[in-house]
């Protein structure tokens, strides 16, 4: 059973195609892009902060206020950028390790104001896996397979854990429609505070008008999360991962909370995009194919 699971996750012995290498580099670029986005969104914001309301992570052990009211947020964003570049361009083996450490510091400083944000968690864990796999393996193929396997394993655990938290903290009545009404109103106050006006979109109105539909929406979300560990197995990935992406889109419409990077990561890993790239490459002329192959191996 464990062997089968590990084979589903890593599949080390299968020959690697050019399409897989190209796909992985796009995947890696996507993750690095989002990490940079967080780095540069949070960095300048830190200079506006003064006080810690909620210490998270490393901030529970050190006084994180040294990052506030100065340019250290921007300095740390620069450090993150350099580390990510060193990792992505294969210049320094410890690049991604440096990136995840400075990323953690960045998060602990930015989210010291009371909110526990989960929007950046999957991007953060993926950078962590880039670091761990790069340090554990020498060859690029094994590194790539390890990163993807760890993503499937820990993303699955994360979503299923979210469902278990709901069942433990609330119990089987968690999907009751009135609970969704509470969250819709909570988000409406937030939107009111952000924009100065109150409005409900069509799906929110539908859920508020009909308790059965509100219950159905929450039941779908709970079941999809609960079965997320199925992504450990290849055959279920094209089913469970798009369903999870669909759940995120539902959350975006009903709760007005966007988890764009999470949704796109799920779409990235749900399907065998590499096979599609290989199919496309086979239709190119020989010299173009050779150029892409050389480039992909050079920048693998």
């Amino acid at each position, binding site marked *: 059973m464990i062997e089968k699971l590990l084979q589903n996750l890593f599949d080390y012995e299968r020959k690697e195609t050019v399409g897989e290498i190209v796909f992985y580099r796009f995947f890696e670029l996507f993750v690095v892009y989002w990490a940079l986005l967080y780095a540069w969104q949070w960095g300048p914001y830190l200079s506006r902060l003064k006080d810690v309301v909620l210490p998270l992570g490393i901030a529970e052990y050190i006084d994180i206020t040294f990052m506030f009211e100065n340019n250290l947020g921007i300095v740390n964003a620069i450090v993150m950028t350099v580390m990510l570049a060193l990792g992505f361009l294969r210049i320094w083996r410890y690049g991604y390790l440096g990136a995840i450490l400075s990323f953690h510091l960045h998060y602990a400083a930015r989210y010291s104001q*009371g909110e526990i944000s989960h929007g950046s968690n999957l991007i953060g864990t993926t950078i962590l896996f880039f670091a761990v796999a790069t340090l554990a393996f020498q060859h690029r193929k094994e590194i790539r397979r390890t990163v993807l396997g760890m993503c499937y394993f820990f993303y699955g655990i994360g979503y299923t854990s979210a469902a278990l938290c709901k069942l433990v903290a609330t119990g089987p009545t968690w999907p009751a429609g009135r609970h969704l009404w509470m969250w819709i109103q909570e988000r409406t106050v937030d939107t009111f505070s952000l924009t100065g006006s109150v409005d409900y979109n069509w799906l929110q109105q539908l859920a508020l008008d009909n308790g059965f539909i509100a219950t159905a929406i929450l039941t779908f979300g709970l079941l999809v999360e609960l079965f997320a560990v199925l992504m450990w197995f290849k055959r279920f990935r094209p089913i469970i991962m798009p369903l999870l992406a669909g759940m995120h889109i539902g959350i975006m419409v009903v709760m007005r909370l966007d988890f764009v990077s999470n949704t796109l990561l799920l779409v990235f890993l749900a399907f065998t995009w590499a096979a599609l790239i290989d199919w496309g490459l086979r239709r190119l002329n020989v010299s173009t194919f050779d150029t892409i192959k050389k480039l992909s191996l050079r920048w693998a």
Partner: protein
Amino acid sequence: MQHYKKGGRLIVGTLIVYAILVLFHLGHFGDVWPPRETRHELGEFWPLSIYPMFSRGGHPWVRSHMREVADVSDPHLWQPRGFDDLPGTPYALGPRGINQNDIANFISKARTWDAQRVAGIRSVFEDDLRQKNLLVYRADGTIVGDSVSVVFTPFLLMAPDTTYFNPTLEYQTATSASP
């Protein structure tokens, strides 16, 4: 086979570190476990998490809302209100690049309101506070029968030269503070 062993060990090792970190930083898991008085203060260990968001169905919530008001001496200013009868004009956070969660959490999670905390929240609105009076509401949401009740209670009034607390509420510090 060697690679699978190594990959398996990496997963187990990461899982152990993951479990230890989230177990010892498990402050946000509903009110179930660990007991509030024993839990390590509030948190997870980013990027590792048990993802407890929205785990407490139907639980009352606290958010915030801000208004720009003209007259700080109006005695009716401190009355709780509903969506439709809030005084003044909305002070929209979005266009000013201020994060709504930060303000809501300041209001709901800050335990003491000493001079430093007041200075902390004022620093976010520094530019506008030179000429505006900003009233911060605490919004409480609860289920009442088959609907959701939202009550806006004035919490903090920030004027250019001073900060007022709601005289009808109790705070863990003095009832007024200078900026």
